[in-house]
């Protein structure tokens, strides 16, 4: 175990006749830090780690920041030592950034502290932590870890990270993911226990750490680690293959996205498109509904990220169990059988039309398709399409550029599966949402633990509905995708393919395994 430490200046004050010399020393320290940062950035870029290299570009920018320099100069002229001054000025900006109510920007506070710490360390001639001197492979435990800290660790010496601060989007997480090192971040006060331990076992998959584990736990962790390493090595080969069954049928393997920010990650897992882009994230936990513009940006960002690869945007599907700002939702006894999905959308054009307009406009930037949830009859599909075409006509009338958008139906109710033939005539594609299809077909609440036995898409009734859906689609010459959890289930994938499913969409980390299963089917 290794404990990172924070730089602390030894000398707070300087004498009046030292001011000019200290300012010059500060200038040289900044130059030295910039040089090191730029070098690290180039090294990362040379090995193709563009995202990580970008972090160091941003740090160069911060180290050279004119306002940082002028803040330090002012303090040095007031006889503060430059090392104390740069830490103080850095902390001022960091505190200001941390107060911003925006996760990504708040996380940049750590970058500012990191850079200021490096300049201070350069000035005092000490490294902020002895990480580069790490000689035995260790778990690194620290309050926080900056990119420059993680980059300084000799290759192979970090076995895992445990930090009190940080989140999924902080750099330590990004770096750990790209280095393939397990990390548990944001443990808060629990860090205390890890700091006092001699051995720490880290499970990055499930996000927990065990301090001073007993023999049995150590053995269990070692076993998990081996299994994971073997599985990963085999699966990695499948990430970017075009999956085909042994008899040559091409099966597209795509990702389900819950927000626009997950796009890049999904591509790295080998997603060949997005089979389900949930749009709820734009609408939840906020004071007012998202504007058409905000939706346009979010859909456009994913469209751009995927380029020619298809991205299926599912229109809003929120039930009475979740609050929507500005929409009058009476409480319901059975929200899953309630006013949700296309039912709510058709009743509230003020909510639906901005979403449709945003999708049409964003389609210019890529290959967007739209999919309607909870459809139980062809009339709903027609009404939704009519609204979509109305939006298209108005946008064109306004002189706004719109893209072509194929329209599909989510098959997630028994009614939709049973009426698949009628729906197929007016759809460009189907996507089977297994989670709801299972719950509605088997009358089994998907959240009820006692009904686990009835929560499988492998139930004969569900499989029959899937078969019927695929046959109707085949008849009409349209593809059938699948986007429920079952789509990534290695045991069910061969059955789904046999029934006629042509695209599987799942949580991105499941993609390599699904491609492997397809290739062996």
């Amino acid at each position, binding site marked *: 175990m290794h404990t990172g430490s924070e730089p602390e200046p030894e000398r707070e004050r300087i004498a009046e006749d030292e001011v000019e010399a200290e300012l010059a020393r500060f200038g040289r320290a900044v130059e030295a830090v910039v040089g090191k940062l730029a070098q690290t950035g180039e090294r990362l870029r040379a090995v193709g780690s563009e995202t990580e290299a970008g972090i160091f570009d941003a740090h160069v920018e911060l180290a050279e920041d004119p306002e*940082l320099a002028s803040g330090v100069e002012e303090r040095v002229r007031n006889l503060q030592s430059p090392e104390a001054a740069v830490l103080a000025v850095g902390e001022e900006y960091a505190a200001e950034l941390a107060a911003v109510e*925006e996760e990504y920007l708040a996380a940049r506070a750590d970058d500012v502290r990191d850079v200021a710490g490096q300049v201070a360390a350069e000035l005092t001639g000490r490294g902020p932590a002895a990480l580069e001197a790490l000689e035995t492979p260790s778990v690194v435990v620290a309050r926080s870890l900056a990119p420059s800290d993680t980059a300084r660790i000799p290759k192979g010496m970090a076995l895992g990270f445990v930090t009190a601060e940080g989140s999924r989007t902080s750099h330590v997480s990004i770096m750990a993911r790209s280095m393939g090192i397990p990390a548990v971040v944001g443990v808060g006060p629990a860090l205390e226990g890890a700091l006092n331990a001699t051995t720490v076992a880290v499970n990055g998959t499930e996000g927990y750490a065990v301090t001073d584990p007993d023999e049995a736990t150590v053995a269990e962790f070692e076993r998990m680690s081996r299994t994971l390493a073997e599985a990963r090595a085999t699966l990695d080969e499948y990430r970017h293959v075009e999956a085909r069954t042994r008899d040559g049928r091409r099966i597209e393997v795509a990702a389900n996205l819950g927000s626009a920010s997950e796009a890049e990650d999904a591509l790295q897992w080998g997603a060949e498109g997005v089979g389900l882009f949930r749009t709820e994230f734009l609408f939840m936990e906020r004071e007012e509904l998202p504007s058409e513009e905000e939706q346009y940006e979010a859909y456009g960002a994913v469209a751009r990220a995927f380029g020619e690869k298809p991205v299926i945007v599912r229109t809003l599907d929120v039930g009475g169990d979740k609050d929507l700002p500005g929409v009058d939702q009476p409480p319901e006894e059975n929200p899953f059988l309630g006013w949700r999905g296309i039912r709510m959308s058709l009743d509230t054009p003020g909510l639906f039309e901005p979403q449709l307009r945003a999708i049409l406009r964003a389609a210019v930037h890529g290959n967007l398709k739209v999919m309607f949830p909870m459809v139980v009859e062809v009339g709903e599909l027609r009404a939704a399409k009519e609204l979509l075409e109305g939006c298209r006509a108005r946008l064109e009338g306004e002189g706004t550029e719109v893209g072509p958008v194929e329209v599909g139906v989510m098959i997630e109710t028994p009614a939709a599966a049973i009426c698949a033939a009628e729906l197929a005539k007016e759809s460009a594609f189907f996507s089977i949402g297994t989670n709801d299809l299972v719950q509605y077909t088997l009358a089994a609440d998907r959240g009820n633990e006692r009904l686990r036995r009835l929560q499988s898409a492998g139930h004969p009734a569900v499989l029959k509905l899937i078969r019927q859906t695929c046959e109707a689609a085949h008849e009409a010459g349209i593809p059938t995708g699948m986007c429920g959890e079952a789509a990534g289930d290695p045991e069910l994938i061969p059955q789904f393919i046999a029934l006629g499913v042509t695209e599987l969409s799942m949580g991105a980390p499941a993609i390599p395994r699904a491609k492997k299963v397809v290739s062996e089917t």
Partner: protein
Amino acid sequence: MVESQATVGPQEGLHARPAAQFVKTAKRFSSEIVVLKGERQANAKSSLKIMTLGARKGDTLTIRAEGDDAQEAVDALVELISPDEH
């Protein structure tokens, strides 16, 4: 002195990557450039200042420049932060 207003277009506002791009562009010009959001003012060549300005999508900013290439600087920065025309 040259001054112009612009509405912030990029999805993330003037944060992180857009901020870096903005600062990089500003540094190409020799003029002194400031960004005003309401009563707050930021040095356009400082990513610390630009990030802490907290400009979000839809905010209206004023860009003011003074110097030899003031007009070019303001034009370039306004174009950078305005929403896509297409």
